[in-house]
């Protein structure tokens, strides 16, 4: 069971309190009605699914209930960092140091 740091509660809590919520930084267009089929495909269907560092969303469901973002290594399950929704993608190279 992983320990995950909620950036809102500012503490590590057991995985049981959280729910995974898919890839992060997939923005919904404010003009979504008008986007092309290709753009919609990218937005709705295509996910990066990398081996290595993934940016993903979590929800502190059984806690503060906030959605937030995390950078996690899919090989080691190690969390490099967690950060609030809306904050920019952190610099991976910096985190790996």
């Amino acid at each position, binding site marked *: *069971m*992983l*320990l995950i740091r909620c950036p809102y509660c500012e503490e590590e809590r057991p995985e049981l309190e959280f*729910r995974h*919520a898919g890839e992060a930084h997939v923005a*919904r267009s*404010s003009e*979504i*009605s008008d*986007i092309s*089929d290709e753009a*919609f495909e990218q*937005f*709705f269907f295509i996910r990066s699914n990398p081996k290595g560092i993934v940016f993903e*969303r979590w*929800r502190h*469901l059984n806690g503060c*209930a*906030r*959605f937030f973002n995390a950078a996690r290594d899919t090989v*080691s*399950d*190690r969390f490099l960092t967690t950060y609030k*929704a*809306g904050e920019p993608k952190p610099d991976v190279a910096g985190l790996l140091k």
Partner: protein
Amino acid sequence: MTQPFRIPGAGRLTPAKTVRFTFDGKAYTGLEGDTLASALLANGVHLVGRSFKYHRPRGFLSAGAEEPNALVEISRDATRKTPNVRATVQELYDGLAARSQNRWPSLGFDVGAINNLLSPFLSAGFYYKTFMWPKAAWKRLYEPNIRAAAGLGVAPGEADPDHYAARFAHCDVLVVGGGAAGLAAALAAAETGVRVILCDEQLEFGGALRYESGARIDGLGGFDWARQATGKLAAMDNVRLLTRTTAFGYYAQNFVGLTERVTDHLATPGTAPRERLWQVRAARVVLATGAIERHMVFADNDRPGVMLASAARAFLNQYGVAVGRTIGVYTANDSAYAAAIDLKKAGVDIAAIVDLRDDPSGPLVEQARSLGIEVNPGRAVVGVGGRNRVSSMIVQPKGGGGKRTIPVDALLVSAGWTPSVHLFSQSRGKVAFDAESQRFLPGQYAQDCVSVGACNGTDGLAETLNEAFAAGEVAAKATLGETSAGGGGNARKVDASEDWAGGMLGSAPGAGADTTVKAFVDFQNDVTAKDIRQAVREGMRSIEHVKRFTTNGMATDQGKTSNMHGLAIAAETLGKEIPEVGLTTFRAPYTPVTFGAIVNHARHELFDPTRRTAMHSWAEAHGAVFEDVGQWKRAWYFPRPGEDMHAAVNRECVTVRRSAGLFDASTLGKIEVVGPDAAAFMELLYTNPWQKLEPGRCRYGIMLREDGFIYDDGVVGRLSADRFHVTTTTGGAARVMNHMEDYLQTEFPHLNVWLTSISEQWAVIAVQGPKSRDILAPLVEGIDLSDAAMPHMSVREGSICGVPTRLFRMSFTGERGFEVNVPADYGQAVWEAIWAEGEKYGACAYGTEAMHVLRAEKGYIIVGQDTDGTVTPNDAGLDWAVGKKKTDFVGIRGLKRPDLLASGRKQLVGLKTVDPKVVLEEGAQIVQDPNQPIPMTMIGHVTSSYWSENCGRSIAMGVVAGGHGRLGETLHVPMPDGSIAVEIGSAVFFDEMGERLHG
């Protein structure tokens, strides 16, 4: 004399404390403190099992958790049967009953042993090759027979009556393994004051010190030192000592799973839990898991009586048991000499030591010779005599030459020691091959842990203790934010030490590639050296492939004794170096863990919560039959005396339309959407327009996913400009809330809106039917219930029975109807008051089944039954609920996808069987032509189907390709006993004009 192999004066057990037990029905006596293995050996019993595949007779290989052979069934009573228990781990208790496994009719004569003769057909990969064809035979013939003939114990047939406990624990330093290294690390860590947990799988701490008679620390014998150290630790408040506790799994972030066997060693377990599962989160982990001795790989090395030298030593020095009277030794390193010396000193005859090394030397070799033990260097054991027990060893110079047969009744073997890197590997650390010592050792660490002692390749007691003391201190100080070089003030004087390096890997002489002998590498899975060579010949290049093809090191064994030999043989056959071939991954659990420990308290009523509504006990008292809907118990129907389900549902449906019915709708999800931007938020989450909905009015809302498919639906009431009372489906409550929160927090955070789940705050009583208003009127205060003041699809706040209510005029039956929301605590009282009024009009209580029928009569869909996640509003005939002028809502773009606009989509329609008495089966397929060849082209399926007493016929809904354009067509539902003709039509079967809603 009982226990003929017990040696007076040897071991640590008390001769007076005898314990009775049975094995295969025969009564024996052992001593308190025995394992089942030591007690059987004390009685001269070596044959204890039949092997997995070939049914070969098997005895004890080891004295510990690595035991691959001596797996038995332990039973306390009819329900308490545990298969595959390692006899070397099971502690003896008075009345213990053990049975051998995988044999019929008896252990001594086993019909399944024919497999041994058939072995050419059962070689490596036989599962994958021999029984491939024909396909049908696999199911009926091969699999059942293989399962019957090959296998281990039999799973118990009844529910487990025992209970299991669980604990979460946090500590600064977790030390795994309580031998010399673990004790030293724990002492050093504990002395800094941090929280320490020390666990060991044995019943007491000491590890190899239990049998290493040559160890002396601080002037004490090794085991006495261990006891002293244990006493010291036990007296410290910051230390938790766990014996009989196996660390079975090492997971991310220093999360380690332990199982503590609480009562398996007790004659009367009482009310204590059988096992306790510990989930430990440690800041630092010290692995002191020791090393496991390897056997020698030679012909028929699985004969009962052939065992690891260290095991014989443990049986002697701990349990006072000689494993034979005339014992042979076959070794490639020094440690077996120590066993021979201990046994010789205890008065046991050592027939000869056969040493593969050309020129063994050193103090142990000298001591053995001086005790008069015959040492044969440069020789190999190339075979054994005996059938159910070894009777001789056949010795040959390792380069070939004359053979000599030496009678023995036990044969001790040692090919060297393999560091136990299982947990290190599970922690995702990378092992590194040390070419000089020919072993894999911890290399790169992935977590905050450290290995000490034999599992780290540290030979020698003094080095081990120094390393462990330092590591314990460093680990503890690191948790305090301090750095330490370690070892301060903890120097121990090691007066005498035993250390074991060296040995050999792979097959021994006489079991090489040019032979066909059965030289076992993995006893538990019946894998021989030949099998591994065959796997390589058949193209397996990776050791992971070899493992799966041969099953070497798989299952519960996890390669404890077999891994290194298997790897060496594969490497030799491939002509590669060992590190090039690589080591297989070690997987959890280290030793088997019971399902009971894992499932733990999550059984029966504690498996999942049961949710009951506020009116549950009323329904129960009125004879309701309940159905499970998710976690909810919902009243399904209310049978009267003499009624079956069908009769009850028919009566309930008719009563609702004739008079009225009461229905408990409390399980509906309810969400309050509040704030200045509440209407804007609703516009984005639902397809419908909301801005112009007047406060006090309701609307049926549809929620889509971004892909354009229906996600949920429900009636929404606008209580005021900034407050919506949203209802969801019962099953959708939690996910709709999550869906809304997701969009509010991440896509539309600019909207000033709060979402609150109110599902459990409001009990909901649906009162439906022409008399519904008459029933409610006397109870309601402050609300004008007239059609003019409160038309269909409106909501008012007021009170009922003096209790606040949100009163909806809405209908899921097609009748005039109300849904009375009251605070849940008042739910039953208000229900009873309404019921009393309802009885005056002959109203009934109705359940979920009648609710389903009534809504189907009106063609109202149920999301998840009539839709399946690929249905659009248009498909469901709900286009009218999509705001055509809207520029954005979740799903708006998905709806424009070409496939969702294409013709021929499956669309929801009504289905009437040509024979009105026939009720279709839900899920049945629909075809155009019932006479077409199989497989038929299926163009749709039935989603809802009922007998409608109100319509006097069966009714159904279904989705059919291009269904909206097929009204009037006759299609067919093929069933096993003939095809059923159905006519496509409107899904509204009752009151097609919808007049009853309004009056």
